[in-house]
């Protein structure tokens, strides 16, 4: 645990908290999950302590299809954080899932120049890592999907 504080302040791994635990547990079984409100049916990401539509706390995590389209994106060419110095250029994209919510992630497995708004993408799960408290997780990322 020696590096926990440094990792918390300067690290780049997510931190698994109660509100997001169900999401990250899903990634360990290669499932992209959305938080669903039992009272009004609202679907939201990221997870929260209540439904942002009706404030109900009757929430559960449901698997999503893993399909979506690129709503917007950027090709990052300057590493603002030292952890990403070897990654540039990389694509950060907001993916609109078929179920509705928008999730921020990366689009991989294609040239950065080929990414477009509206491009269909499909989730994949990166290798397992640990957060600052040694809780396991896998980052969901997206790659181009076959056009329907």
């Amino acid at each position, binding site marked *: 645990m020696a590096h926990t504080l440094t990792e918390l302040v300067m690290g780049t791994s997510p931190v698994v908290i109660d509100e997001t635990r169900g999401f990250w547990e899903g990634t360990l079984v290669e499932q992209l999950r959305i938080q669903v409100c039992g009272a009004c049916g609202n679907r939201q*990401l990221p997870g929260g302590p209540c439904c942002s539509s009706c404030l109900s706390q009757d929430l559960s995590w449901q698997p999503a299809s893993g399909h979506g389209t690129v*709503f917007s*994106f*950027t090709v*990052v060419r300057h590493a603002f954080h030292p952890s990403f110095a070897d990654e540039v250029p990389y694509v*950060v994209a907001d993916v609109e899932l078929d179920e509705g919510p*928008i999730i921020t*992630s990366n689009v991989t497995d294609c040239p950065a120049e080929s990414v477009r708004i509206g491009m269909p993408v499909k989730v994949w799960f990166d290798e397992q890592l640990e957060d600052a408290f040694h809780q396991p997780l896998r980052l969901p990322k997206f790659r181009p999907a076959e056009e329907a």
Partner: protein
Amino acid sequence: MSISGDTAIAGVGTTAFGKLPGRSAWSLQAEAARLALEDAGLTKDDVDGLFTESQFSEPLLLHGHVLGRMLGLRTNYLSTKSIGGATAISLVQEAAMAIHAGMCEVALCVFGENAKTGMPMLFGLAQMGRGQADEIAYGMAGGPVMEARSAMRYMREYSVTAEMFGSVAIACRRHASLNPAATYRDPLTMEEYLASRYVAEPLRVLDCTIAASDGAVALVVTSAERARDLRQPPAYIAGMGAGDNLDGFRDPTHYTHFAGARSSARAYAMAGIGPEDVDVAQLYDCFTSTVLITLEDYGFCKKGEAGPFALEGNLMLGGALPVNTSGGMLSEANMTGWNHLAEAARQIRGACGERQVPAAEVCVVSGHGGFQAAHATLIVTNEVR
């Protein structure tokens, strides 16, 4: 009595901006505070309200407590706030409200930073990622990476070109060339703009605010009645508005429409004016795209028409709506919007020399930030209308 015109910016203090090695953020804040009080013709013993925003470098909890002790103040109202780029305006609004409510009479509003030569802003940058649902794990670190998604969508939906973004940068640089305090004063051509490297497409280096500046800004806000007896012509606070979209980039409409439409509508209503009455605007320019979207949100242009409006040169001195007459954050200094407020008061005084907008009677200021989520508007005028 309405709060419109009931308070005024009566003192402005700015330090040098840029690289100021050996100057702590506290030292710069103290200098700006002294200059603002001297400008108003007041002493620190007149101050009974303190409104501060903490610096990113050397951040401390209870910033206002610490600065107030350093300045030897005895306050009746103390506030330290952090809502991103809307903080500066929001604090001035809070000062006006506190004065109007009788909670204090002379408010000192202060911000200062030494992130250029002092402790790096990495801590702040890391925290910026943290605030957004672990997005830093995907390399969502740094303001340009966050804002680029908005710029990309805005270009796509409204056929905005790189040259339209560039015309914002060029106007700010033109104004900075007339401002001895500005960091970047060399003229900027469209060729130079287009040749500048991408940091996060579609944003180039020259689309982005100066990354970090050393410097400080302080403002004295007091009642209109008291301001009239002070050293400088008052910049009356005629309109105030605020609006937030805290859902941010989870809301598909948020990429191309900010809460500035709500915020400015409330400010116009309070001031009893409309966009057609505005002589000069200081618009929060963390990015060129932000300025264009704000021009539309504020009713200066119809949706999708701010780009062509800028390209025609309308943002320049002599144009239809001079914007960011100090050079703004793109060319003067990154004072997270505080320099826009200083410039607004100085334009209303007619004290801007070569960059003065003739007969500047109404100035609009926008503040915008915190992942584009928070927005605030201030309208200052030369008379109570």
